[in-house]
Structure formats: structure tokens, C-alpha cells
């Protein structure tokens, strides 16, 4: 085997193996979340509902395969194998010469980019099959191309060589459009172009086949449009493509699919020209290695690479599983991971500031460096605080950890309500808000395993047995959640078992507040904070008062702090206040003359004095500039939180 052949054969396989490894072991949470946001039920009604839109069969197949992302190694393996199949079939369908085999990977690369570039977009995708169905759609679109190739090569009779491809392009679109939407049309058009660029039948007939495929492309969606009541006429030509509930993001999401379709229409025109030039080209490793490197580079550039996003997803999965310690660990790991890069950024920034000419230049440098320091998103902080509360460590540890409000690296800011609203609301006992965000999410983005799970838990908490059974029934028809569904069924008739079972044992003590009218305006963090700041419930539990004090401290509202502290001390019967609470009390006492006098630990008073001394010896030019050096010395104190973590934007 020549080197060239070896490279052609093994390089793609090596890159595919690399892709699988990265997905399976580095993007585990991303794949799990995509699965959590999808749904496949072994259920007649689910099948009927899915098939009600053009492209429904692809959606069904895509949803079926998406469930295997529950085991990321398996789901990603299936997808990578489909990508390999797409490259192999592209090569075969379009008869791409061996030396130009690298071209056959273009659709696969586009499909990789489509899936790995989404980032926060996964939370607002309108269909749940988006990970697999475009790949299946592309594969399906190659079928008529292969069919007409075969017909052209088999049928030597002129009439058969014309009629068969003509029938194929028209019938394929007519029959497959309801099942595959745009991919059926794309296949028809690509097949038409293939016939046009082939050597037989005669030119007129070839043009006739192309015209028929073009006409099918235009007319068939119009004809089918009259049978559907689920789409606009303008959407009939994009049916079967993933949809995102943000129009400004739609074209970016769909661009890779459009390019893959354009590729399959253009490549039959290019291939004959390549064949002619083939003999002029030399056989070298570089000839294949360079395109491979370009592909890798493209995938790398478009891959959504945001460590906060990954941490959020991992924490989200841990919260779903009520793995509270794991949730906290994920946050601390993320902080530790950035310690070195923070130090490097500080060193580099200091060097630049030292050389800077004036205050304006310093401000510029500080601003430029701001994003190089680690800062958690509000969602990460909310997940962490929730977990710490469940572990009864929040008042001791929450203010000793990193805080902040880094914006999502996202084309559109995805509201926390869609991303994690149902999780926060359920776990803080705000059951009706959990219901609300399950419903809003379902209406905007469709049912998912996640929403069925949270609707089940909502109904379990509120004791609505029949409603719980409805969702348990749905999850019983899944491959990976039937066991979980069964476990919930047991809880329905045993309230004492419920009180001992996660996550309910942490939720039930939160259900002690009085009813009031509310609207969260799609801002869960603010809503939760205000909820706990409202009037003290008559039957407040110790758990409730801990959460109320935590959010009073978060709000930096001094009067709320004293009020909540009073109730906290009463209900929690503690011997000694947690250090951050003492720090807050000492700080607020000094800021207000009529604060509460408390017995403070020596370390607290020393720390407070040290902070004040340090401030006088290290004047603060700007909060952004001083944040890092102050955090090294006082980052684990409430004083630091009070002075440096301010004006955060929640979303």
C-alpha cells in the first residue's frame, strides 16, 4: 500500500477516533445535557405527534439516537460512525476521485461544527433531535444520488436511462418530503445535478431531469403545505432543519446544514473537472495532511470552548441527581484550575501597568485583562449556594468562595429561567414557579426527559398523585429513566419515605412560607432572593431561616441581615455563629451605629482590623484593578464580598 493510500485510509479514522475521545471524555456533560433536553418515548402517541410535521421521521430517528447520549461514550460513538458513513457515502455517491477524497469530509466537518458550536443555544433549540437528525438527513439525501448513479450505469437503453432517473428524482421528493423535509428535497436536487453532469442520456433529457428535480424542489413543499397545519408556507423549504427560538441566531445555527446541502449540489459539477486534472497532481502525504489540518483547525475554531459553560453543565447534572457535594466540588475544581492562569494574568497585567503612562492607559489595561481572570457565572454561584445549603454549609462556606457575575459567552444571553429555573425553584420549595418554568420551557422548546422529571417531582412535592403518575407513565416509556420513574412511584404513597429521600428531604422544610402573588419576570436569582427576604413565615423551619439569612447576606441589605439573623439564631439554636456571619455582623455594626452587639471570634476582629489597615496602606484605584490582589488576602471574608462583589447583573 502506498503512503498516500495509507494516509487516505488511516488519517480519517485517527481523526474520527480523536473526535470520539474528545466528545466522550471531555464533553460528557454537554452530551448529557443535550440528552436531558431531548425526548424519545416508546409510545404510539409520541410517534404520531412527531410525525405531524414534515421531516418527522428524521426527528423520530434523531430523538431515538439522542437517548444514547445518556451514555456519552455510546452516543458519541454512534454519531462518529454516522459521520464516517457520511464521508464514505459522499465519496461513493459523487464518485470523488481518490486523490480528492478529502473533499468527501466537508459535510461531516460541517455537521461536527453544527453540533459543537451551539454552546448555550442547546437550551433554546426548538427540536430535541438536533444532534442526530441533520446527520441522518444528510445521509438520506445521498440515497437518490446513489440510486440515479446506479440507474445511469445499469440502463443502457436510452429511454430507461432517462425515465428511471426522472421518476427517482420526482418520486423521492414526493414520497420522502413528509418524512425528511428539506433533506428529501436536497437529495432530489443533488440527484438532478448528478444526472446533468453525467455522460448519458442525451443533453436535453439530462436538462429535463434537472428541471424535474428543481420543479420538485419548488412545488412539492407547496403541495404538502396544504396537508399540514403546523407550519408557515415560508418554512416549508426548511422543514426538517433544527430550529432555535431566537430568530437572530437561526441563520448561524442552520448555516452548516445549508452549506452541506450546497456542497451536495455543487460537488457533482466540480467532480468531472477534478477527474480531468487528476493526472497532473502528485501523490504526497501533504496533499491529504494539509486539508486534514485545515479541517481540524476549522472544528477547533468553531468548537464552543468555555470552561464556565462546561462547569455549569456538570453542576446542573449533579443538582439533578441531588449530588450536593459533587456540585460544590465542581465549583471548587473550576476555581483551583484557574488559580495559575489568574496569577499569570496578574503578573502580566502588573508589568503592563508598571510601564503604563497614565490613568487612562491603566484603565484600558485593566479592562483588557478583566476576562483573563476567572469569574464564575451567576448560575454557577446559584448552583453552589443551593448545594451548600442542602449540605448545611452555606453560611460557613459560601462567602469564602469565588463570586462574580461573568456573562455567558453566548450570541444571546440565555435566561437562567430556561437554563436552570426549574431546578432552583423546586429545590427552594417554590413549587408553582417550578411548574411555570417547566411549562414555559415545554411550550417554547418541547417536552424533554428533564421537564418530565421536574414535573414529576413537582407533583410528588405537591401530592398530586394523578399528575405525577402521568409523567411517571411517560418516563416509564424511556430507555434510561424508567428505573427513576419507578422509584418516584413508590414515594407517592409514602410521605415519610419522601421526607427521607433526596431531593425531597431538602425541599419539604422549605415549604413553610405563606402564599402570595408573584411574578419572577424571568429572573430566578432575584426572585429567590426577594422570596426569602419577604415577611417571616409563622412556621419557618431552621432550613428556611438558613436560606433566608444567606440571601439576606447576598443582598448586602443591612436591615434585612439583622432581621434574618434574629430568626436564624432563634430557630437554629447554634452555639457559635458561622465566621462569615460574624464578619457581616461586625462590618454592619461598624457601618451602622445601632447594630447588634455579638461575641466575635478573635480571628474575626483581627481579620476586620487587618482589612482596614490593608486598605489604608494599599489604596484602591479601581475595584477591578484591586480585586485580584485583595482576593488573595481577603477573598475568603465577608468584607471582600461586601466591597468587591457589587452591581452584579443577574439574568
Amino acid at each position, binding site marked *: 500500500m502506498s503512503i498516500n493510500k495509507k494516509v487516505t485510509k488511516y488519517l480519517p479514522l485517527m481523526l474520527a477516533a480523536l473526535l470520539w475521545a474528545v466528545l466522550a471524555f471531555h464533553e460528557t456533560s454537554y452530551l448529557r445535557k443535550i440528552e436531558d433536553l431531548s425526548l424519545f418515548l416508546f409510545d*404510539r402517541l409520541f410517534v404520531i405527534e412527531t410525525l405531524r410535521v414534515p421531516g418527522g421521521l428524521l426527528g423520530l430517528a434523531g430523538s431515538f439516537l439522542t437517548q444514547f447520549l445518556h451514555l456519552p461514550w455510546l452516543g458519541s460513538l454512534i454519531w462518529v460512525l454516522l459521520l464516517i458513513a457520511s464521508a464514505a457515502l459522499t465519496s461513493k455517491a459523487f464518485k470523488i476521485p481518490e486523490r480528492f477524497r478529502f473533499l468527501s469530509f466537508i459535510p461531516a466537518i460541517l455537521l461536527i461544527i453544527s453540533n459543537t458550536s451551539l454552546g448555550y443555544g442547546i437550551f433554546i433549540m426548538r427540536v430535541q433531535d438536533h444532534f442526530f437528525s441533520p446527520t441522518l438527513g444528510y445521509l438520506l439525501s445521498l440515497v437518490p444520488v446513489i440510486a440515479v448513479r446506479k440507474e445511469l450505469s445499469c440502463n443502457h437503453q436510452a429511454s430507461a436511462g432517462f425515465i428511471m432517473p426522472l421518476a427517482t428524482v420526482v418520486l423521492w421528493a414526493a414520497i420522502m418530503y413528509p418524512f425528511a423535509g428539506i433533506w428529501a428535497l436536497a437529495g432530489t436536487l443533488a440527484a438532478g445535478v448528478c444526472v446533468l453532469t453525467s455522460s448519458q442520456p442525451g443533453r436535453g433529457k439530462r436538462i429535463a431531469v434537472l428541471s424535474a428535480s428543481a420543479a420538485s424542489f419548488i412545488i412539492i413543499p407547496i403541495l404538502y403545505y396544504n396537508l399540514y*397545519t403546523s407550519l*408557515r408556507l415560508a418554512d416549508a423549504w426548511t422543514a426538517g432543519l433544527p430550529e432555535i*427560538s431566537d430568530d437572530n441566531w437561526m441563520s448561524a445555527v442552520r448555516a452548516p446544514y445549508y452549506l452541506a446541502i450546497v456542497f451536495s449540489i455543487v460537488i457533482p459539477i466540480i467532480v468531472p473537472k477534478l477527474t480531468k486534472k487528476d493526472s497532473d497532481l502528485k501523490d504526497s502525504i501533504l496533499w491529504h495532511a494539509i486539508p486534514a489540518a485545515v479541517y481540524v483547525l476549522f472544528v477547533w475554531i468553531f468548537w464552543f470552548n468555555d470552561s464556565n459553560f462546561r462547569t455549569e453543565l456538570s453542576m446542573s447534572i449533579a443538582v439533578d441527581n441531588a449530588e450536593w457535594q459533587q456540585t460544590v466540588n465542581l465549583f471548587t475544581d473550576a476555581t483551583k484550575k484557574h488559580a495559575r492562569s489568574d496569577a499569570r494574568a496578574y503578573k502580566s497585567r502588573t508589568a503592563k501597568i508598571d510601564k503604563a503612562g497614565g490613568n487612562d492607559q491603566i484603565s484600558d489595561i485593566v479592562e483588557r485583562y478583566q476576562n483573563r481572570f476567572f469569574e464564575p457565572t451567576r448560575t454557577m454561584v446559584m448552583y453552589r449556594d443551593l448545594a451548600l445549603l442542602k449540605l448545611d454549609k452555606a453560611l460557613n462556606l459560601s462567602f469564602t468562595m469565588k463570586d462574580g457575575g461573568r456573562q455567558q459567552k453566548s450570541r444571546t444571553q440565555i435566561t437562567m429561567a430556561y437554563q436552570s429555573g426549574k431546578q432552583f425553584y423546586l429545590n427552594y420549595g417554590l413549587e408553582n414557579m417550578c411548574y411555570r418554568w417547566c411549562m414555559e420551557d415545554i*411550550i417554547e422548546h418541547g417536552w424533554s426527559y428533564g421537564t418530565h422529571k421536574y414535573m414529576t417531582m413537582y407533583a410528588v412535592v405537591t401530592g398530586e398523585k394523578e*399528575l405525577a403518575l*402521568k409523567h411517571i407513565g411517560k418516563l416509564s416509556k424511556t430507555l434510561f429513566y424508567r428505573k427513576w420513574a419507578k422509584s418516584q412511584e413508590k414515594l407517592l404513597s409514602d410521605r415519610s419515605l419522601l421526607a427521607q429521600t433526596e431531593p425531597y428531604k431538602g425541599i419539604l422544610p422549605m*415549604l413553610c412560607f405563606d402564599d*402570595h*402573588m408573584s411574578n419572577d419576570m424571568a429572573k430566578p436569582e432575584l426572585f429567590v432572593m426577594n422570596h426569602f427576604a419577604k415577611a417571616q413565615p409563622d412556621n419557618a423551619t431552621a432550613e428556611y431561616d438558613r436560606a433566608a439569612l444567606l440571601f439576606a447576606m447576598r443582598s448586602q441589605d443591612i436591615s434585612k441581615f439583622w432581621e434574618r439573623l434574629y430568626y436564624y439564631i432563634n430557630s437554629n439554636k447554634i452555639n457559635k455563629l458561622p465566621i462569615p456571619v460574624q464578619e457581616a455582623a461586625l462590618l454592619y455594626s461598624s457601618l451602622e451605629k445601632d447594630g447588634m452587639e455579638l461575641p466575635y471570634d478573635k480571628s474575626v476582629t483581627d481579620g476586620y482590623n487587618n482589612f482596614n489597615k490593608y486598605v489604608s496602606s494599599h489604596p484602591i484605584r479601581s475595584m477591578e484593578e484591586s480585586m485580584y490582589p485583595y482576593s488573595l488576602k481577603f477573598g475568603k471574608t465577608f468584607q471582600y464580598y461586601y466591597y468587591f462583589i457589587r452591581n452584579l447583573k443577574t439574568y
Partner: protein
Amino acid sequence: MSLLVLAACSPHVPDSARPQNCAPVIFPDYTDVTVPSNIAPLNFSITQNGSRYLTVMTGGTEKYVTGSNKVVIPARKWNKLKQQGKIGVEIYVYNDGQWNAFNPFTITLSDEIDPYISYRVIMPSIESYERLSINQRDVTSFREKVIYANQMVQDSDNGQCINCHHYRNYTTSNMQFHARQYLGGTIMVIDNDLRKVNLKTDSTISAGVYPAWHPTHDYIAYSTNKTHQSIRSADHNRVEVTDEESDLILYDIRNNAVSVIENDSSQFECYPAWSPDGRMLYYVSARYDAPFDSKRKDQVFINSSEIRYDLYRKPFDPDTRTWGESEMLYECSLDGMSATLPRVSPDGRWLMFSMAPYGVFHIWHRQSNLWVMDLKDGSMRCADEINSPEVESYHSWSSNGKWVIFSTRREDGAYTRLYISHLEADGTFSKPFALPQRDPDFNKEFLYSFNIPEFMKEPVRISPKKFASFISGTEAAPARYESKRGK
């Protein structure tokens, strides 16, 4: 030979069965119900635990035997079973090594029902309305069609809400529904011609909301509402919808003009409904005195549990378009109750309404029940025989006045389902039964609600596409405001 094999395999009544002395548990519960003679097959599931099942249905000499726990009756068989006016049902369940016989029950066939109903298909949502449709169902079969769906018009950035489909005298040549927000307007079919109207004028609170088409003249009474929605933080009634302002208007179809019926600023007048002769307008109204300032909206929510609607009626002369003085029919607020959705039976005798301890939007009030008033003598009672511990809300009379269809969340507390009941000669109602579905488990599985059930004598013949292209391509014609209340 093959016949013998078939006979051996087909289910047959067991020779001996242990009597259970109780009714079988089936879903939907069709035990001892009275149903219209033209209703679709009453398919049901036996939810009793067992390894084998047997159902025997007998109507005169006709028999239907099935061995499945899902009893799906072929239409032709159902029609034969119905002919004697009564269907006997026996159910046997094989469990613990023997057959168990449950108490047989009877399905009684009675007056015919209008062949069509229409309803809105909606998720029990709070704010979003991505997927809404108004559908029509042939109740004599399982055929269901979309009348109009918002997905045919809206896009990601421009949502459209659709609601309040309504017909004149149960016929579809004159009908209406509202499209809100994107390409919005009131979509009317007037003698089979389409019209899109903007009923909002500078002098009225809003466009028309809850409609009542005059039975003899070309008028439609509407409520106009400024409403708000809020979520209850810790109550089984999850959502609260309140009026901040509410009045009644009359739309004159021929003149495209709106005039005021009631607009007392200290009253929330709502839910108009005509008497069958069109000479009386029934409605509900709540007294609310808070000032019109920036705090009013919040104040309405704070007071929401104390806002209660009383029943009123107002005489009307359709020929001269003149109104008489309003008369309070039932001051339910004195009893700590709030009445909504008054609907008069076609014979003018019965007034059905839904009532709960407070508020105007009872679909979110679990305590909401259906009540009925005898307009002959003013007596009134809670229709306990058709109510449940969960919500009963929107209701409609069939055109012959023999049936009511109503929406209820009795099955699971969240998803609204449609139940039908027969009005007996003594003014009571028969045991309500769920609108039959092809798949007996449909109501358990389907994750949408059905609301605003309305009877129709005929299907809507305008296609969904025609509605969609009309809504997309037509500007809503503004209605004119007439300051005079009547001629």
C-alpha cells in the same frame, strides 16, 4: 378447520367466576352513564390488575366480546349495539388463578347531540403560547380537524395567541375567534364571508374579549378587559388571573360600530351571554373601588381573594337596540362566592354558571363547580352530580338543550378534559362521561388541554389555510365607536 381454531382462540365467557360485588375500575369511567344515541364508541381500558380480561357488551341480540384490557369497539358493532337503547356490559378479570366477575353495568342511549364540537388545544401554560389550535371534532366518530392553528402564521419573534371561538346559534356560517398580537384582530365569518376587525377604540378598555352572538340580530356582546396574570407562590391554585378593568360592549356587525353596554368604573362587568330570545343579556360583575393610579395593578392582586362576581341580567330590545336597567340575579358575593360564565339553556329555563370562592378565571380555581339556576322560579343549586373535587369551568348547552359539555381537570388536576352530561326531566344531570377517544388512554397520555368546548350543528367549512392566508393578508378594519348606548 381454521374456523374451529378461530373459535377456540376467540374469548368466551368463563364457566365460573368469583363475584366481586363491585363495579370494575375502567378508564374513562363509563359505568352506568347516559350517552347520546349518536355518540362515537365508548372505548375504555380496564385498569383492574389481571393477566387476562374479558368484556361482553350486549345490545338486544347483538353481542361484542373482546379479550383485551383495552376495549376498542368497532364503529359498525357499536352502531348495532346501540339500536336497542341500552348496552349491558360485563367485565371479567383473570387474577390469582381464577376469573373474577365484576358488577355488570349499563350504558343508556338517550337524545341525540350536536354532531360537532370545537375547542382550543393548549398546554396548561402560564404565559407562552407557542402551539395553539382551535380544533373541531365530530363527536359521532373520532375525526378531528384543525380549524386554525397559530403555527400557520407566527414566527419565532412574532407570536400569535388565538382564543374565544364562538358561533351564532350553533351554525358555522357566522362565527368568530380572536387572533392576538401578531397580525391580530377579531376574525369573523359573516354569512360565510371573512372579516377581520379591530374592536379596540379610543373609548373602550380593549378589543372585544368574551363574546356572545345575538341569536336573532346582527350584534355581538363582548366584555372588554384589562387583565393580569400572576403566580401563587404556595397554593394549589397555581395561577391567578384578575381583571384590572372590565366593561361590556355591543358590536353592531352591519355598521361595524361599538357601543357601551356597561362601563361602571367601580364594577368589573364580564362574561356576557344572551337569553335564547335575545331580549336579556346575562353577565357577571364585581364591585371594585380602588383608585385608578399606578398602584392599581398590584392592589388588584393583593385584593384578588376578595373580588367576587355577582350574577346580573339586563333587558334589551334588539329592534330598537335599547337597554333596560340591570337587575341583580344572585348576589353570590354575600355568600362568599364568585360566579362566572353564565349560559342559558336553549329553552330559556336553566342558567348554568361556574362558581368558586373568589375571582373571575375559574379554570385555575380547584374549588370551582358548576351551578344551575331555574329561571322559572329563581331556585338554584350546586350541580353536585356532575362536579368533582377539581375544577369545573367552561360549559355549553347543546342546541336541543338536552346535553351540557364542560371542561374539567378532574382526571389529574392539570389538564383540562371535556365531559358531557344529560339534562334529565327533573332538572338534574346524569353521571358525566368523558368525550370518547379512539385510544381509551388518550386522556392520560395527551399533554394538552382542551378548553372552551362549543357545540356546532355543522363543521366549519373554511379551511385552515384560508383562515391563515386571510389573517396574514388582511389588515384589521377598525370598528367605529358610538357614544350612545342605544338608539
